[in-house]
């Protein structure tokens, strides 16, 4: 690897990171593009392994701009691609610029004058009874297993949650020869329409995604896949072995139902990846309505840390097209482009904003959280139950606890994932107990390493 510092390091090779790289490379800046996945693409275009051939992979018209961007990225010999590599920490260098701690396929330090964090988002883990059974996965997991690994996540899939993306996933699953038992929405159709209404006019200016959703619905109807509204999943149940998922309990129209399945994918929306920006000292804010923390930035996508930029879902979940635009703006900004050069991107951003707002409103999970109390685990890593968390909140109530105080008391957030899965839920729970807005609850302090690191590698690479 080159020993000189890079002009730009981009963490995350999804649409935002790729778009930024196009701009920085075009401007003649030495650019490193880093991702934990072995190939660029992000989650939306998570590619099959090199060596696989997949006919018509992601060939839909809606994906064309993303595929073109990906092809340009992979063909670019001037771009330094570091796949299979995690960034465990970012520090401002005394001499100016930044030092990144790499781990995985490439390890050691990487220096760059400017850094873009475009690490995207992840499915919001939502606790409910039985959710830790093998076979319960995120919708994103079902989708990437299919898209990238060409594997159907199970024999019979149930999708459930408030986010309409699960319609698209159901369609893809069926098209791949899979069996979808049902798609369950807790919202009624009327409630979805009511949520969509204020944003509909604006969203119709970019009809593509709406048509895709309608197309998915039609395809599912043709395939005989039930899409059930007003269906609240209450529990995931084990199979005869007791060791894996066997079915889903839900309530619809006041009646309890059960569906047998071996894989259940939850789809309540997405959480921006905020650990690396927070470790780097960038200011974040609670990302309403779904939750998690979005990294704040100015109009040129610079975070509160000078020289550190953010783009894409990391700044707030708004979809792949907006991510590309933000990435392009960030790349141009890192290349010190004039405002004039950014204008057309800003115009596209404005045009796409209404659909993003519509999706946020329609998918808003807040009215639909499954009841998660008692034995239901809130912290999957340390096996901390809701009852334990609630007891800690109650016991510490006289002493003004923040999220860290609850963590200290009952270990929620102290495991391998360091709160990625549970912090948002804890903050919500604590906010409710204290009569505060979630954004007013001090969250965890994010520290190096932002991903678990093997100690032998750490010692070996010690500077």
């Amino acid at each position, binding site marked *: 690897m080159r020993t000189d510092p890079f002009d730009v390091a981009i963490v995350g090779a999804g649409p935002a990171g790729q778009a930024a790289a196009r701009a920085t490379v075009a401007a003649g800046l030495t650019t490193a593009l880093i991702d934990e996945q072995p190939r660029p693409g992000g989650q939306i275009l998570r590619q099959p392994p090199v060596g696989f051939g997949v006919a018509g992979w992601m060939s839909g018209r809606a994906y064309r701009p993303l595929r073109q961007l990906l092809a340009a990225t992979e063909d670019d010999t001037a771009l330094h691609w570091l796949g299979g590599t995690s960034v465990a*920490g970012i*520090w401002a260098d005394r001499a100016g610029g930044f030092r990144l*701690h790499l781990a995985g396929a490439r390890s050691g330090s990487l220096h760059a004058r400017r850094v873009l964090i475009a690490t995207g988002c992840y499915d919001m883990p939502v606790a409910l009874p039985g959710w830790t059974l093998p076979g319960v996965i995120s919708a994103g997991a079902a989708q990437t297993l299919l898209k990238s690994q060409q594997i159907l996540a199970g024999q019979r899939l149930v999708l459930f949650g408030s986010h309409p993306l699960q319609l698209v996933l159901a369609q893809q699953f069926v098209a791949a020869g899979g069996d979808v038992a049902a798609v369950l929405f807790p919202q009624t159709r009327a409630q979805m329409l009511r949520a969509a209404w204020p944003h509909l006019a604006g969203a119709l200016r970019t009809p593509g995604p709406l048509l895709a959703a309608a197309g998915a619905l039609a395809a599912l109807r043709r395939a005989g896949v039930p899409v059930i509204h007003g269906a609240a999943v209450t529990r995931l149940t084990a199979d005869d072995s007791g060791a894996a998922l066997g079915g889903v309990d839900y309530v619809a129209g006041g009646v309890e139902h059960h569906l047998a399945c071996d894989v259940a994918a939850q789809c309540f929306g997405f959480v921006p990846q905020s650990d690396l920006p927070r470790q780097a000292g960038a200011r974040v804010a609670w990302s309403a309505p779904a939750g998690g923390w979005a990294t704040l930035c100015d109009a040129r996508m610079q975070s509160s840390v000078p020289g550190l930029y953010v783009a894409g879902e990391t700044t707030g979940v708004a979809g792949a097209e907006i991510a590309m635009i933000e990435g392009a703006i960030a790349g141009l900004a890192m290349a010190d482009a004039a405002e004039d050069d950014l204008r057309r991107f800003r115009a596209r951003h404005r045009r796409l904003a209404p659909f993003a707002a519509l999706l946020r409103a329609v998918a808003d999970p807040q009215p639909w959280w499954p009841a998660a109390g008692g034995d239901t685990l809130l912290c999957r890593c*340390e096996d901390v139950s809701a009852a334990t968390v609630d007891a800690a909140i109650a*016991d*510490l109530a*006289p*002493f*003004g*606890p*923040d999220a*860290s*105080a609850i963590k*200290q*008391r009952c*270990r929620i957030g*102290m*495991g*391998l994932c*360091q709160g990625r899965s549970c912090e948002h839920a804890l903050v919500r729970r604590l906010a409710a107990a204290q009569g505060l807005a979630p954004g007013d609850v001090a969250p965890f*302090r994010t*520290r*190096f*390493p932002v991903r*678990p*690191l*093997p*100690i*032998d590698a*750490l*010692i070996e*690479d*010690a*500077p």
Partner: protein
Amino acid sequence: MDADILIIGGGLLGCASAWHLARAGLTPLVIEAGALNAGASGQNAGSLHFQIERRFLEQATDAAALGSRIVALNRLAIAEWAGLEALLGGDLGIHMHGGLMVAETEADAELLAFKVARENALGLPTELLDGAALPGLAPYLSRDLRGAAWLASEGHANPRILATAFAAGAQAMGARFHARTRLTGLRMTRDGGYEIEAGSQTWRAPQVMLACGHWSAQVAARLGLHLPLYPVPLTMSVTDRTAPFLPYLIQHVGQRLSMKQAEDGNIVIGGGWSARMARGGDGLPDLDAPAELVPEHVCANLAVAARVMPGLARRTLLRSWTGITCISADQLPIAGMIDAAPGLHVAAGGSMFTLGPLVARLLAESIASGAPSADLEPFSPRRFAHLNAFTVLP
């Protein structure tokens, strides 16, 4: 008067003192800027280290004298910890199954022998073990170690839950706690009592205890008093959990190292590797901001740990974090009443997790009885009285 005593700082010292004072029939009022136990009390590595620490041997010009003064307190602290769960009730994660301070080099071994001799002379029953004795006792330690000093009563406790356990008990006995309450003013009143201001609230009491760790000097300065207590930002690291295998506290006489396996199975590593104070907008150290990790120190700390316990290399680092403790001008705790300001008490100055419950009790007893504690006499602020010879109060 709003309380018998105002306690500034809701960490281990503040909460434990409140507990003892309340039990003695006084009404303490504790104010804490953040959440209870959010500072060094909750962030330290949880070591119960009763052997003379390396930091005394490393820096002191007269290691003998310094060591002897702390050993007296350490011996009392052993009994304090041994009785703590009975005192408070409940499981506090206290494990006192032994500690090994290891030696790698010849020089280490000599220092260790010197230390053990000193400790034995002062009544602390550390035993010098030869390298050959270690594999039988602790097979997971490196075979290259020259030896170790063993003390049966050393161990570890859970720093994350102790202060709030004291607080809950204190509150049940009438102590009052105001968390998320930041001190904005402290003054002595004309009648010789004290008034503290926290935003829009004020409280008065005849006495005040400063239990605010690395903020101590800043708070004392509000009264024009000099307290030679300085912030020391330190680094800790923790690995993933594994099945129990390490019952002892491991330290090192020649290197900065502490290592233990917590009750949940994680290996906690520390031992005095420094972090860096954050700087405010004015370029000065920001006492309120978390200290910044120095990644090179994290790696160096882990490297020493892995040399002493080779199996550590296969573990996974989950998190490194910082905490800011404080150190006094002579490295020894400062505990007692400040003569220049009657009714003003202070307790701070390093090793205040290991010594915290003891110092809190002794100080509380002296406040409640009005008689100074003989055991705390060597640590009285009086030794720094010369710094406040020119202070004007109130």
